[in-house]
Each structure stands twice: as structure tokens, then as C-alpha cells.
């Protein structure tokens, strides 16, 4: 069973995404800010990280910077999950987000569960 870490400060969203993912046979853990997200990622070595952008303490971009600099976590795929549409290149074939000058896959909030699941599947190579 693939393990997914959700890092998002919106507890309602986390709750709903957790339900959805569990129903689709994923093991889910979560945390509510970038700092804890970074620590949990090292601790748990998930197969995928779903990362919000705007969070207290440490925002998603910062957390990913740390994750990519760390040998343990640098190969874990990251899927950004954001309400900030302005980050996304409009009309782009794939939803992507530009973080620290690098493009990462992204899903916009409000989310469509099917779109989220499809993105997860493709990132996990399923």
C-alpha cells in the first residue's frame, strides 16, 4: 500500500482528501504546516507528498526546497495543492506550479477528486 503525506493547514480539505485516498487504498498521514511536513517526510519516507502552498510557519515552497536538498527525501514526488491560481500557467496542458524556478505538478483548489486521483496515479507510476 502506497503511503501519501498530506501537508495542508485547511483541516476540512485534509479530512476529505484523506477519506478519498483511503477509499482508493492509499495509506494516508497528514500535518498542517511546512515545518512539520518536512520533518514527517524524513521520518516516514512517504511515496508521495501532497503540499499546500500558503501555510503558517513555513510555506510549501520553502518546505519543498528543504525536501529537495535532503538525500532522504529528494526523490519523493511532490504534488502541489493550491488555491492560488495565479501561480499556474493558464491553459497549460498539465497543471504545473513554478516553485523556486522549477515546475512541479499541481492541482488547484477547489479540487475534483477524479483529477486528484489521476494526478496521484500518474506521479506514482500506477
Amino acid at each position, binding site marked *: 500500500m502506497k503511503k501519501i503525506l498530506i501537508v495542508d493547514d485547511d483541516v476540512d480539505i485534509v479530512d476529505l482528501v484523506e*477519506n478519498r485516498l483511503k477509499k482508493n487504498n492509499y495509506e494516508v498521514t497528514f500535518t498542517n504546516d511546512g515545518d512539520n511536513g518536512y520533518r514527517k517526510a524524513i521520518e516516514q519516507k512517504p511515496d508521495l507528498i501532497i503540499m499546500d502552498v500558503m501555510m503558517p510557519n513555513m510555506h510549501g515552497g520553502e518546505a519543498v526546497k528543504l525536501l529537495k536538498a535532503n538525500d532522504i527525501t529528494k526523490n519523493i514526488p511532490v504534488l502541489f495543492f493550491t488555491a492560488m491560481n495565479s501561480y499556474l500557467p493558464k491553459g497549460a*496542458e498539465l497543471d504545473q506550479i513554478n516553485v523556486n524556478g522549477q515546475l512541479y505538478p499541481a492541482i488547484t*483548489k*477547489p*479540487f475534483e477528486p477524479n483529477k486528484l486521483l489521476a494526478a496521484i496515479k500518474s506521479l506514482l507510476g500506477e
Partner: protein
Amino acid sequence: MHSQDKKVFILASIEEVSILRKFAILFLISSIIPMFLLYYIYLYKTRLGFMAMIMMVLGVFVGYFSIRSLLIKATDIARENRRAIEPFLSPQIIKEISQGENELVVLKHTFSALTKQLATTITELKNKNDELLALDQLKDDFVNNVSHEFRLPLSIIQESIRQITEGMFGQINEAQQKYLNMSLRNIDRLKTLIDIMLDISKIEKGKLELFKKNMDLRDVIKEVVSDLSQKIEKKGLKLKLELPAQPVEIVADRDKIIQVLINLVGNACKFTQQGSIEISARENEDSIECTVTDSGIGISSKDLPHLFSKFHQIAAPQEKGTGLGLVIAKHIIELHHGQIYVESQEKIGTKFTFTLPKNTAAPNGKAVDNEKNINRG
């Protein structure tokens, strides 16, 4: 006031004429004496010299009268101007003008007052305009923010209800299912409303952007049909598709064309109680044509001209809408350099047709057509 004006004018003119007379006499003496000297010394022997002398003398007199008539004209203009702008002038300036020594001075004061007044008015208007632009921007930002802020909680409600109806937390009974489905339908409606609000705000600012790609119109139609087929079947309507065997290639914004088709087919479904809905696509010589025809209640000739206008909604028996769907559809098609039109007969049916230009210069992948839409409203 008026007679006083006249008096000032006459007095000034008399004064003016006397100054001019003095000036003219001085001018005559100072120009005629050297001329005669010149004549007696060099030119008296020739006929041409005599003629030149006469011309010069005539010139001096013509000069005098020209100056005089110009001055009279100028004073007339000054008077007219002053009368016209007096209501806009401050008492101080009027006083200044009235105290002018002669009409030329009055003219000068009048023009300078007029220029000052004009400059003030332009500045005031510019400030007002800036204020209005700022307010308009505020309104747009507000609409944008509110719409985005609405979406997130709405999607949380939607997903929660979906998870319940999918039985994630245990079986639910038929009545629960029915009312939760009703909630979901209305959430969809609310989402559509938010999208429409955003679209209209973008259209009004000319900021509706197109992301054009190559596509087969038949695929787009099939996608829309599969989305709406349930709704159409539920109403007991027949759905006919008339699509060519070969691809109908267009370069367009897929999502936007889907939006137009959903609107047209949705309307057809909404206003048709029995019969059929027919969707066709075909390639003409220089355009692609798509039609949506229904056998519904039709549109009265009274409503027909206003169909693509903002907030115009025709009376429908049970259905409600925003009256903005067709406005958006028209803008989308026109942004694609196409046309949309409608033919309808009451109680017989309605036929919407839109055309798109043929795929001439195909952009590769995700070309963006940033053209601003000038056509407002």
C-alpha cells in the same frame, strides 16, 4: 450690465481709432517722405518708377485700413467670447476684464481666463476619471476575490455530500439520497453562477482570454452530449447527431467551445417538453458550422432581438437561469472570429447556429490569443 458693456466697447473703440490715426499719420509721414526723395533722385525718369511710387502710396493706405478692420473684428470676437464664458468666470476675473483699458486688453484677459478655466476643468475631470477607474478596478477585484473565496467552501460542501452519497460512511436511505442529490445539483448551479459572474466580469474588461488548440469539433460535441445525455433522456427527448464521417478540424479554446455547446444544448433541453434535439456540424467552403435545433416552445418575435443582451431572460415555465449564458456564448464565438445567430418560431422550435473560421494557420500546442474584446455589453 449689457449696455455698460457696450459703452466700454464704444469708448475703447473711439480711443483705439484716435491712437490708430496718430499712428497712421506718423506712418504716412515716415514712409512717404523717403519715398518721394527716392523718386526724385532715381526713378522719376522711368514710367515704371512712377507706377511703383503710386503703388507704394496705395499700399500705405490699404495697410492703414486693414489694421483698422482687423482691430474691429478682434474686438467683436472678444465681446462674443466674453459673453459666452461669463457664466463660468469668477467675479474677480469679470472685474478684471471689465477694467481692461481697451478691447485688445479685454481680449487678452478673456483668453487667459478661458485658458485658466479650461485647465481647471480638465484637471477636475481627469481626477474624477482616475477615481472612477480606481473604483471600477476595486469592483473587479472584489468580484474576482469573492468568486474565488466562494469556490473553496463550496467544493468542501460538495465533496462532503459526494462522500456521503457514495456510501463512504455507511448506507443511506432513498430519501436521504434524493435530498443529497438535490443539494449536489444546486451546488453545481451555484458553481455555474460563480463562473458566469467571473466570465461576465472578464468580458466587460475585455480580459476573456482564449487558449486555442487544434481539435476535432465532433469530439467536443460528443463530450458535451455524453455530459447532457442523461438529462435529455430523463425528459423523454430524442437526441439526434448529424456529424460528418471525417474530422471537423477547428483551432479553438476547447473549454470555451464546450461552454457554448453546453449552454445551447442545455437551453434546448430546458425549453423543449417533447420531441427532439438535433446537433449538427459541417464544413462549409470557408467556415465550420454547428447547429443546435430543438422542437421546443420557440422564442417570440418580441424576445428574439434581445436574446443576446445582458440579463434578458425569456419566460420559461419552470426553468430559471441568469439570462447571461447566451451573452457569454456570443462573446466566446466572436472572440473566435465566428458568428452566432438564432432562428425561431413559437411552438415549433428554435435553431441556434454558430460558425467558426476554418483552420487556416494552426498554432502548435497552446497558442494564446490575447486579443482584447472591444465589443462590450
